[in-house]
């Protein structure tokens, strides 16, 4: 489903980040990926650190509440393990690019940043004039990834997928992609609706995989809590190249599933 050189989006705004899928990329040794994600988070820090990434499209690259993403920084500041190309957005332009992609429109529109240096650096954001009022607005090229991967709480036997809590841009990222993979906490016979949930119909999803705990150290509301301790611990693990690589070897390359990885971390899936 995913090949070297593909453009891949693994979305989930702090919540429901598909970490297990990212680990599988590392185990399979995928290379030259263009990765799209609003907040690279630990999942892309790991993929950058193992050298799987050619280009990164993002809007905020930190370890939320902790500080830096050290593998992301090392790649940009020192080209380790290889230089990466970056294509940088704001959250608003990323959100608009996702809506445009889901709508199969060439661009989205936003009111944001005339005069910012981002406009100079990101060729996919251009100034446009409103044909009705003459106002100056920003246009952003649509995101159209080859593959989108998300993690969700539940799927039913027919492959319909349900997520709730902070639902981020997942629905848009799914609808913008050519191929879609969803990992879920639970597969149920029939989905019971939850207030504020998003239901993604089976027809727009290619594959559903049952991966309990597949978002760790992110979380799945109703199933797990965000492992803030791990986000803190990642700061020290990822700061040093050798320690990072040893961690990946032991916990990702040295395991076959998220279940095994969680066991090794002393967490119950």
């Amino acid at each position, binding site marked *: 489903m995913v090949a070297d050189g593909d453009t891949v989006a693994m979305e989930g*705004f702090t919540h429901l980040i598909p970490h297990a899928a990212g680990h599988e990329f590392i185990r399979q040794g995928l290379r030259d990926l263009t990765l799209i994600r609003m907040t690279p988070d630990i999942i892309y820090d790991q993929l950058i650190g193992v050298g799987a990434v050619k280009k990164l499209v993002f809007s905020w690259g930190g370890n939320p509440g902790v500080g830096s993403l050290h593998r992301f920084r090392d790649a940009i500041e020192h080209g380790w393990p290889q230089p990466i190309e970056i294509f940088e957005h704001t959250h608003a332009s990323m959100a608009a690019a996702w809506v445009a992609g889901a709508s199969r429109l060439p661009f989205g529109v936003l009111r944001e940043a005339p005069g910012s240096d981002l406009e100079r650096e990101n060729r996919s954001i251009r100034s446009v004039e409103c044909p009705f009022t003459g106002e100056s607005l920003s246009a952003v090229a649509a995101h159209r990834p080859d593959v989108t991967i998300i993690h969700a709480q539940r799927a039913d036997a027919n492959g319909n997928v349900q997520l709730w809590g902070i639902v981020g841009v997942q629905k848009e990222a799914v609808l913008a992609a050519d191929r879609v993979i969803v990992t879920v906490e639970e597969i149920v016979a029939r989905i019971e609706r939850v207030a504020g949930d998003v239901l993604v119909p089976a027809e727009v999803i290619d594959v559903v995989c049952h991966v309990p705990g597949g978002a760790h150290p992110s979380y799945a509301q109703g199933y797990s809590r965000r492992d803030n301790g791990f986000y803190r611990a990642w700061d020290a693990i990822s700061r040093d190249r050798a320690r990072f690589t040893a961690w990946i070897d032991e916990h990702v390359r040295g395991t076959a599933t998220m279940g095994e990885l969680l066991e090794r971390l002393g967490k119950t899936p």
Partner: protein
Amino acid sequence: MSDASPVEVMTVVAARAMRNGQWCFVGIGLPSAAANLARSLHAPDLVLVYESGTIDSKPEVLPLSIGDGELAETARLVVSVPEMFAYWLQAGRMDVGLLGAAQVDRFANLNTTVIGEYASPRTRLPGAGGAPAIAATAREIIVVAKHSPRTFVASLDFRTTIGHLDGGASRERAGLPGRGPVRVITDLGVLEPDPETRELLLTAVHPGVDVETVMSATAWPLRTASKVTTTPPVEPHELQALRHVQDRTLLAHS
């Protein structure tokens, strides 16, 4: 209370700037601490909005990330990220946005992207996130940052978020609807834009801080307002409330 640290003073002063009932867009870290402190003091009905999509969250502890589960569980409503940025932020429904920054210039433009050259930065920072949209469209912006010449710089290494652009009426001419930064609160004092030139002026110093100290912590020749006041001291109940929420937070995230 005299034993409040400079950062605690800054947090309390930022909290005091929040008015009850306002819709407040909250950045993570110090802005979030200040907004939640305001909720526990004079502004119980402050509506906290986090960019993850949670509106009117009422967390018991300070979230580590803007997407902690407690923000969603205690929110009046949770919306998708595209809805948050289009319907709520860019539509201009925020009364106030509280933002931090790595660099601030004399027109309160902000850098959160890089230190050094963009193509080969000395320090790569997280980037823009939601700040440009907030700064463009919230009715007003309050910036919170620790004062040092490395932060309050003569020229930004990267202009991530527009404050008063090049000063004067340049912000309005650029078509940005909000008023932009109305106050910059630091650990030493308070800066506010001159009504005409929009250059930041020193309008207040915190208790025990003299004007020269603020000047030497600012890399451009900082001008003072015609009258520089002294911030009312941090009250014992304010400090107690701040430490209380921080203690609860430490316990919850440990």
